[in-house]
């Protein structure tokens, strides 16, 4: 394999190569690329970053790794904003750079979320008593595009994929799925105990995982199992007996009672009238004592007690595995797909000693050396929502949010409709022959709707000025700004974060 380009790095760290999830494929893939074997990178047109890179060493293993620019504060700030917001315009980046990395972290964590506009006022919901899921999706996308606190939306999206529910099972006759979105925005940086109590009694979740119809006498195990497996502990840290004891202990919650009901004519021709629930304000589940378990003491996660919901949650949080479970998920979302266990342990320990304070955990993550380590650079793949919103932000085209809403199914991330109770997969799962076509087509569609675009010289800024040789060559020869933006946004570089 020939090495082109001018970066002279003999070899990458051995342990990194071994960790690579695609190491075997890397070799095959490189062979497939016609033997071109371009293993080094060339810096493209962005003089400031080019200067930075004078002192940055590349880890050139296999087909080469990205040359991390994270030695510079400016690149670290851009990296931070790319991962915690929907990317920054040049002016936003300049502002954050002048504040500095540390102050920018403070601002992200300490600014109260800007509330989205009330959906009730803008939706038909009050007319026909039924949410329109397309309106709901676009309402959230619009807010992602316009909000002054995009970090809150990134966290809401994170929790939406974690404590997940889908509109198909929850239904659209109640505002439950909408409330759940408001809930995770409000609670995004609170503590795990409050969040576990809340998710247990969240009306959408009561339906989604059937706790709302379970009884202590004949429990439905669905919620108890996923609480342990997917929300709080992970496989291997509980047994089947714990699932059953949990199901009994948690039974008794039912959907909130509506403030009143109204009759709505759903089919005038056939005179079909249905009763619809009306809630004057968002509510949580109602506990009905005679549906609860009355068998007294039982053993749950190794301790005998008379368990109710609070005791179940507290017993779960008494397990060290709980802190590491959430820490690992945060890391895979915000830092890197594969990280050292010691890093997760360290974060888990801080998380636990802070009484599971999510803001503390996020601060630990964002200020950790691992977050800005060279091997974390472009170590994550943007989810479809992140990719589309960042594309529209970069092109200053928030008016095209409908395109994002319509394109989401083809890329595999439909808001309020995760594939299953595990939420969305991440990183390499977003890369398939289907998804690369869908992503390219989204960029084409957006550009075809825009007669004018921002100056093409802005485009490489969204790639930190760090591009592979192919991308560099194409950008350098692009005929006009549309072509330049297309190449930047459709490039593999832009799919990464």
């Amino acid at each position, binding site marked *: 394999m020939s090495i082109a380009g001018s970066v002279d790095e003999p070899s990458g760290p051995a342990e990194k190569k071994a960790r690579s999830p695609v190491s075997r494929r890397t070799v095959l893939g490189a062979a497939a690329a016609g033997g071109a074997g371009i293993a080094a990178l060339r810096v493209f047109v962005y003089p400031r970053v080019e200067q930075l890179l004078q002192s940055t060493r590349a880890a050139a293993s296999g087909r080469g*790794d990205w040359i991390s620019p994270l030695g510079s504060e400016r690149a670290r700030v851009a990296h931070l904003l790319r991962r915690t917001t929907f990317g920054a315009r040049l002016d936003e980046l300049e502002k954050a750079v002048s504040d500095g990395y540390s102050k920018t972290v403070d601002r992200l964590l300490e600014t109260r979320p800007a509330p989205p506009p009330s959906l009730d006022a803008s939706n038909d919901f009050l007319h026909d008593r039924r949410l329109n899921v397309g309106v709901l999706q676009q309402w959230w996308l619009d807010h992602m595009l316009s909000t002054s606190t995009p970090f809150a939306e990134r966290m809401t999206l994170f929790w939406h994929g974690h404590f997940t529910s889908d509109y198909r099972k929850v239904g659209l006759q109640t505002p439950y799925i909408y409330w759940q979105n408001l809930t995770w925005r409000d609670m995004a940086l609170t503590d795990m105990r409050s969040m576990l109590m809340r998710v247990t009694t969240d009306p959408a979740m009561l339906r989604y995982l059937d706790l709302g119809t379970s009884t202590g006498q004949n429990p439905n195990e669905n919620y108890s199992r996923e609480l342990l497996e997917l929300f709080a502990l992970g496989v291997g840290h509980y047994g089947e007996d714990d699932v059953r004891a949990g199901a009994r202990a948690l039974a008794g919650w039912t959907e909130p009672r509506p403030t009143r009901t109204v009759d709505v004519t759903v089919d005038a021709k056939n005179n079909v009238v249905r009763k619809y629930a009306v809630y004057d304000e968002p509510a949580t589940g109602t506990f009905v004592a005679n549906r609860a378990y009355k068998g007294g003491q039982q053993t749950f996660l190794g301790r005998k007690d008379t368990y109710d919901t609070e005791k179940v949650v507290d017993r779960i949080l008494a397990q060290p595995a709980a802190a590491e479970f959430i820490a690992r998920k945060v890391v895979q979302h915000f830092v890197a797909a594969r990280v050292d266990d010691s890093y997760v342990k360290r974060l888990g320990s801080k998380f636990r000693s802070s009484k599971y304070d999510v803001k503390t955990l996020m601060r630990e993550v964002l200020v950790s050396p691992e977050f800005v380590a060279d091997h974390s650079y472009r170590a994550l793949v943007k989810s479809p929502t992140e990719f589309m919103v960042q594309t529209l932000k970069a092109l200053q085209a928030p008016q095209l949010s409908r395109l994002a809403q319509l394109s989401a199914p083809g890329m595999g991330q439909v808001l309020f409709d995760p594939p299953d109770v595990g939420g969305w997969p991440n990183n390499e799962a977003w890369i398939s022959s289907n998804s690369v076509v869908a992503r390219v087509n989204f960029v084409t569609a957006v550009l075809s709707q825009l007669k004018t675009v921002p100056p093409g010289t802005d485009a490489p800024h969204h790639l930190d000025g760090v591009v592979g040789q192919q991308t560099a060559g194409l950008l350098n020869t692009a005929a006009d700004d549309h072509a330049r933006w297309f190449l930047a946004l459709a490039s593999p570089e832009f799919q990464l974060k």
Partner: protein
Amino acid sequence: MTEEIGINQLRRRDFLRAGLVFGAGAAGLAAGYAAVPDAFARAVYAAKTNGLANERVLVMIQLAGGNDGLRTVIPLQDPRLHDLRPKLAALSVGQALPLSDEFGLNQNLKSIKALWDQGKVAIVEGIGYPNPSFSHFESIRIWETGDPTRRQVDGWLGRTLAQNYDSFGHPLTGCACGTTDAPGALRDLQATLTVINNQKAFGFTGGGQIEAAVGALYKATPGIYGALFDTAMATARESVTTLRTSQATYQPMADYTDSQRLVYSSKNQLAAALQLTSELIVTGTGVKLLHVTLGGFDTHYTELTRHDDLMAYLDSAVGAFYNDLSAHGMADKVLIATWSEFGRRPKENASGGTDHGAAAPLILIGNPIKGGLYGQSPGLTDLDSTGNLKYQVDFRSVYQEILGGHLGADPKEILGAAFDKLAFIKDPAGSF
């Protein structure tokens, strides 16, 4: 090192011309742009000297969420069924389509019953594995990798692709239809596969300039995801080109409809996915191992109508698929096999549904099948300590017969061990 593709001709008008945006894919295809997918140009359809030479095809249908075996193949004579399932058992027993004195199919599996009557359906009872996991994700992974010890990372079909086919030079050999990401069963780091969610959208809307541009962009991409990106793009371009030809020559010869009563969580349009599968098979694209998914089987609540609807939906899609293959003269080559991560608990819960269970039957369909009941029903009197059915046949016995009997591959090489023989293939392909 930028490839000479005249990329500097890509400009604003190329995007504005793309105009219609959604649905422009068909127009782009009709324009007849014929790209030569450079990355695979050398290898496409090339040497399969090490590969399997037969024309047999496998279509796996995943019933995601855990299909209730006791409502699919119903034990008609077991009185315990009514005790355990006061809400769920009564009607289904009365309405079942009898297979024998003992067992009946769900009343909505009418097309499958008709194929059973023709000796084209094998039902394997009591499928499972030791120490069952009741986690969807863990059990799916066990089925996908064919490894209950949870050590294997590659999928069993992915390994088959890597070891028996030249999928690298021919990425449509393994294909997932009707999904946006690759199913674990087909994944293997040494195999390439195609993922097509919707064939109408599977093409580059912007036309030739754009396809050429992205072909050049996704080359020698650095970083840990670089090879994945490059392979995905090269695979897409190759498959798009192949499909462009097949779309011109395929006419469905059966009634595929996804307008069945909307079933919760049937996000995967099974009929559309199977129609695409049929197209790939009958137009000679060289597909061998295909995977489609029908979701919604996690019936923890109001299972009665929900599961019946799912059965009707499955039956309608599979029936159309079989008829289509048959009308195209391809039915002798294709084996259709269902799988699901687990069965469900014999005892129903407070929500009128059932929780996660263990053993369940599998249904295999097609002309290659020697029809009949295989395996052994666990029975409802001898449940395990968790109140679940005890498995009688390891799921890898089914894989073994599919691999050795149908595809002619070496099952031991792929599964790592030999399992009890289940001889449900009529004319075994190979010598294994």
